């Protein structure tokens, strides 16, 4: 077997194992939460009998291990159970929310990843001169401000004062494509500002590291322009670390979006999760946790595989 296939297969298997371990943690974590679902559903009107009946109905009396496997096999078949609070199918309502979150993350990524890499390349080209310092200063400032504050600041200036964008990012199926884009513009800007610095700095550091190597000197001595040297000779050898940090940030765009969604009242996963955590709706919390874990592990796996594929020694063995 080609060594690359073996390595990729290894990564896939490891990721599956990791996801399984994450599912155990998520399940165990929600088990040790204080409080009782049946109690919180029934609230004031709870009597010992109605509590017992509801527990029986929800399957809360079965042993934890049985419930875990029931949950896991259900999840594998796409059945995440029903929400305790409103009795709706979780997979269905989650699907819509996840779609919205991915829509937001997708546009934030489309803008931030190329921008971060381009800024990184420019920073390397003008290392220690004013463009480099300006780029670092701006991106580091934006990462240092809490995202909810950036969110409210943008809302105040761009939505309230100038009226360019709506202050609340509501979207629904009736809206046209461009209407949707206009609606999510503010959260996309906030997310971009949050992830830009990390990716830009890593691109800069990875390429500068490669710029020290003898083959970059060879390229310079061929009379190539600085930008050609960076683009043709340094960048291809810096891909692995860059992809790693890009994937980490993409994962953040999906998983860490909670605050931004709440600020802009965006109907995504984050909102959904926050709503149901406050209602102690355990199956929903578990389902959200599982999806976040899968996104996180999946993207990091892709980063690993890209790093393997980017290595010419592995791609073309002797």
């Amino acid at each position, binding site marked *: 077997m080609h060594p690359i296939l073996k390595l990729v297969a290894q990564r896939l298997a490891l990721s599956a194992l990791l996801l399984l371990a994450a599912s155990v943690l998520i399940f165990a974590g929600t088990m040790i939460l204080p409080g009782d679902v049946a109690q919180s559903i029934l609230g004031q009107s709870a009597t010992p009998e109605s509590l017992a009946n509801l527990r029986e109905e929800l399957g809360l009396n079965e042993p934890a291990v049985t419930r875990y496997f029931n949950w896991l096999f259900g999840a594998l078949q796409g059945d995440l159970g029903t929400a305790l609070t409103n009795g709706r199918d979780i997979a269905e309502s989650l699907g819509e929310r996840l779609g919205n979150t991915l829509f937001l993350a997708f546009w934030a990524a489309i803008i931030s990843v190329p921008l971060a890499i381009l800024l990184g390349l420019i920073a390397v080209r003008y290392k220690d001169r004013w463009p480099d310092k300006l780029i670092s200063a701006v991106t580091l400032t934006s990462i240092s401000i809490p995202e909810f504050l950036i969110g409210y600041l943008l809302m105040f200036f761009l939505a309230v004062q100038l009226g360019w964008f709506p202050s609340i990012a509501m979207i629904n199926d009736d809206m046209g494509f461009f209407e949707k884009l206009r609606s999510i513009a503010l959260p996309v800007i906030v997310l971009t500002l949050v992830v830009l610095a990390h990716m830009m700095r890593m691109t800069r550091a990875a390429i500068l590291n490669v710029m020290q*190597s*003898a*083959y970059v*000197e*060879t*390229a*310079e*001595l*061929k*009379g*190539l*322009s600085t930008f*050609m040297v960076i683009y*043709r*000779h340094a960048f*291809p*050898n810096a891909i692995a670390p860059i992809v790693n940090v890009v994937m980490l940030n993409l994962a953040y765009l999906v998983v860490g979006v909670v605050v931004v969604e709440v600020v802009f009242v965006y109907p995504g996963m984050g909102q959904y999760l926050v709503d149901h955590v406050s209602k102690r709706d355990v199956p929903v919390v578990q389902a959200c946790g599982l999806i976040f874990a899968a996104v996180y592990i999946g993207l990091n796996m892709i980063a690993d595989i890209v790093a393997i594929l*980017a290595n*010419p*020694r592995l791609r*073309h063995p*002797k």
Partner: protein
Amino acid sequence: MSDTLLKVRDLKIGATVYPPGEKPHDIEIVHGVSFDLERGKVLGLIGESGAGKSTIGLASMAYGRGGVKITGGEVWVNGRDILKTSLGDIRNLRGGEVTYVSQSAAASFNPAKKIMDQVVEAAVEHKKFSRKEAEARARELFAKLGLPDPDNIGERYPHQVSGGQLQRCMTALALCPEPDLVVFDEPTTALDVTTQIDVLMAIKEAIADTGVAALYITHDLAVVAQVSDDIMVLRMGNTVEYGTTDQIINNPQEDYTKALVSVRSIEHEEKQPTPEAVLTVDGITARYKGLNFDVLHNVNVELHPGQTLAIVGESGSGKSTLARVITGLLPPRDGEITFAGRKLSPDLKGRSREDLRELQMIYQMADVAMNPRQTVGTIIGRPLEFYFNMRGAEKRKRIVELLDEIELGEKFIDRYPAELSGGQKQRVCIARSLAAKPKMIICDEVTSALDPLVADGILKLLLDLQKIEDVAYLFITHDLATVRAISDSIAVMYQGRLARYGSKSEVLTPPFDDYTDLLLSSVPEMHLGWLEEVVAHRKMESAGN
């Protein structure tokens, strides 16, 4: 236009240095060097490290490595001063008129790109050829330089060809755009001697065929004597002597040049073996974890007290692996090691402190074998504490004795490794191993990273210490001149096997086996025309091709 291609006048080059604990300041590293190079001629620049020879070579491309800046003088290429020309013109010069071959082709090729893409890049970029023409020319050059399968080797990635082959590819890269001048910066230094000869011949023929001029930079006078028309000897940024190759080799005027021509003046009388051996390596077969072949096959050697056994061979011959087996870092698959009359545990963990003390090691890179944050006194004192439990004044007295033995003296006791020269660092490593009062020291390429004159000093020191301390050396090296200088017996290794083994006089006296013949004949000799003679008489190809 006159025939002068490169005219350098009063070239001064400076650099900014950042010494620890001091303010950064500018120093001058080349102090006004002048020379001329005509079209189609080869000028050899020779000197030890720090002589400024690479810096001068790169200055002919208006390039300064790291923080190096050209601070004065003129560099005329094709009738214009390139220190005063525009940036765009410098780009045309680099890779178009002047090209560069570096010491380590392995590091100078981009690992992520095919060889062909890199070889034709400059020619296409400077619009000398179309991509198609350039590739045809590259294939022609591959064939001329003796590369195997010249039509397809360009489709490979750098890690898929050997070091010697890659060095030839780098030469093809430099010749592809039909430059007027090629700067060869130690192009064969990193290669084994038997490979060096082939690459050297290929370079020499390519220079003759294409009519290109060359600056040939090296520290090895014997090598430069084979390829250059003129030689300039440099020392610490100054010209020592500048003349024709014939004059420099056969009639050197300056003392420094004379010293370079006559290095390896060490004479060492071969000692007779004693009845008892200090080290017996008996039928060692070894392989690394994860490999499915043996790297050592049934190796048997003996080392007698107070004597030197030289293990000589090329990279990949298994000589360093043998050292790893003897030190216990790599337990062998088969065979035994007897040391000082007792059987050694194959694994390091099974060895007593006494075993460790009596068997010391000195490494090639003295830099990385010392903790940069410890003083010389601490470094040498550590084995004294560890093996002899010495403390305080007693320890200090012994450290000073050792410092005297290695000819450095007490004033070095509080210095840090960074404050020492390469030769001084290696001396400290020798003192550290001697501090344990060993019966035997494994010396792994201990002079390979040093300039010839400095290496000579280290070898003399080792021989003197052997007389005083009665210590045996297992001397691992690829350098036959070193072997001749210091050994009592020699083991020649080839592809994991002993090719020849015996006393120095036996091994170095004909008739030779084919491999030993190849190895011995490949050592560059300091006379003109040696390269052609030896290539004409070879029986065997080197394994590194």
